[in-house]
């Protein structure tokens, strides 16, 4: 038996898999990996097998299970183990999801486009006023998703720095930082929900108070836990995808030139970038609640299992030249948003934010280029959101 390789591993390039993943991919589509705490877990690296696993009825998201895979110390906390939706199975998961679906459907999100365009135009105005070199992380990638989710939820944007910092600490901090930040967020959202119960406003929080809390469908604390997840999930993932997407395009000038020549290629280019970048690296941490047969192996009841988005998105069994960025790829299928009932609630909002932001940048700053070598960009993250801390560009 070959020893189980460690997972996750840190990237050395913001958009390429860690060097050690090649060997893991070769041993896929299913193998055992070793987590930071020394425990082993099943790992799925195949695209088709990921879809099969994530729709299997014996798969569970119950993070309180003693064998649930913990991929970094910050996920040990009680808050991380009891996240609404993410750490839930049906039927409660499905009930909550149905409360939220109308507000994140493709149709609902398309109605938000004019407002998103206004917001993005304002940020790009600021970038142009600032002049080169401009840090696109600070001036666009971090504030955009933050403002958008604050407006959507009806949360005061004056507090956006608190949200940004807290959600960043929850996702990327040490165990202690993560737990403290999550508790601070809970306390803050708790008071927001209390305000909304007294005086519901137009945003999603107010709507949920009117439609679900007032009717007794959910309690105050349940709404707090739902709002917490929406805030955390909306910040880091979109922000990182935006920054990493820009870097990836700037580092592939041939693809960028095709996009300049054919702006209608943008939606397809975004899918390809989502595939290529695999912002979250791991797209699922789960536990089997019954035996699961997959790719000729059996994941036994109570065994932990992970899905590598980084590897599934580049599965050579599905994608020709999987390691090549091709913005006109016919089927840029990926599991970056997951698959099955937990597939990302905010995926359409994320896509449209990326589309509007890329369009505005490409149109108004067509000669944009990195102001530093890609190897000198400060990057962070292994096993969850890949993050770039600054992105200086010039033009």
């Amino acid at each position, binding site marked *: 038996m070959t020893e189980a390789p460690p997972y996750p591993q840190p990237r050395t390039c913001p958009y390429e898999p860690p060097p050690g993943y090649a060997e893991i991919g070769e041993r896929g589509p299913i193998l055992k990996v070793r987590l930071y705490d020394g425990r082993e877990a099943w790992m799925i690296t195949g695209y088709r097998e990921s879809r099969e696993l994530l*729709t299997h009825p014996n798969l569970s998201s119950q993070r309180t299970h003693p064998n649930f895979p913990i991929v970094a110390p910050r996920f040990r906390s009680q808050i991380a183990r009891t996240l609404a939706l993410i750490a839930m199975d049906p039927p409660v998961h499905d009930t909550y*999801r149905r409360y939220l*679906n109308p507000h994140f*459907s*493709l*149709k609902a999100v398309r109605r938000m486009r004019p407002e998103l365009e206004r917001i993005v135009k304002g940020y790009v105005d600021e970038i142009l006023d600032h002049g080169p070199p401009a840090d696109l992380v600070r001036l666009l990638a971090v504030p955009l998703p933050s403002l958008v989710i604050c407006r959507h939820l009806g949360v005061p944007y004056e507090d956006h720095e608190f949200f940004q910092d807290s959600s960043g600490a929850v996702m990327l901090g040490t165990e202690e930082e993560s737990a403290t930040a999550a508790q601070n967020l809970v306390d803050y959202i708790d008071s927001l929900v209390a305000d909304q119960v007294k005086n519901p406003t137009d945003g999603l929080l107010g709507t949920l108070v009117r439609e679900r809390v007032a009717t007794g469908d959910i309690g105050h604390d349940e709404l707090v836990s739902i709002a917490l997840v929406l805030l955390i999930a909306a910040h880091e993932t979109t922000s990182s995808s935006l920054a990493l997407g820009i870097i990836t395009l700037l580092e592939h000038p041939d693809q960028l030139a095709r996009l300049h020549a054919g702006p209608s290629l943008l939606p397809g280019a975004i899918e390809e970038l989502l595939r290529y970048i695999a912002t979250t690296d791991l797209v699922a941490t789960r536990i089997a609640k019954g035996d699961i047969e997959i790719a000729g192996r059996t994941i036994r009841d109570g065994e932990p299992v992970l899905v590598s988005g980084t590897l599934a998105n580049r599965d050579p069994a599905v994608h020709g030249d999987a390691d090549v960025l091709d913005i006109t790829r016919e089927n840029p299928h990926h599991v970056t948003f*997951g698959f*099955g009932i937990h597939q990302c609630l905010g*995926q359409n909002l994320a896509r449209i934010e990326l589309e509007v932001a890329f369009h505005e940048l490409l149109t108004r700053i067509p000669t944009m280029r990195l102001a530093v070598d890609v190897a000198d960009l400060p990057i962070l993250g292994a096993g969850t959101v890949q993050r770039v801390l600054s992105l200086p560009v010039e033009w």
Partner: protein
Amino acid sequence: MSTVRVEADRESCISAGRCMAANSSVFDQDDDGIVVVRTTHPAPEHRDSVRKAAYLCPAGAITLRSAP
């Protein structure tokens, strides 16, 4: 060439919108975000995009049957 009949299970739909993104003349979403099939027997030119819609549905809510 045979045509397909499109069925969507509104109970298992999770509003991901992949179907509507693939083909908005065959698939729509209602006010709850749940899938609505606009035409159960789409014209042959929609065949590929309808297949793609079924393939990309994360909830497996779309079924294609061959129609006589």
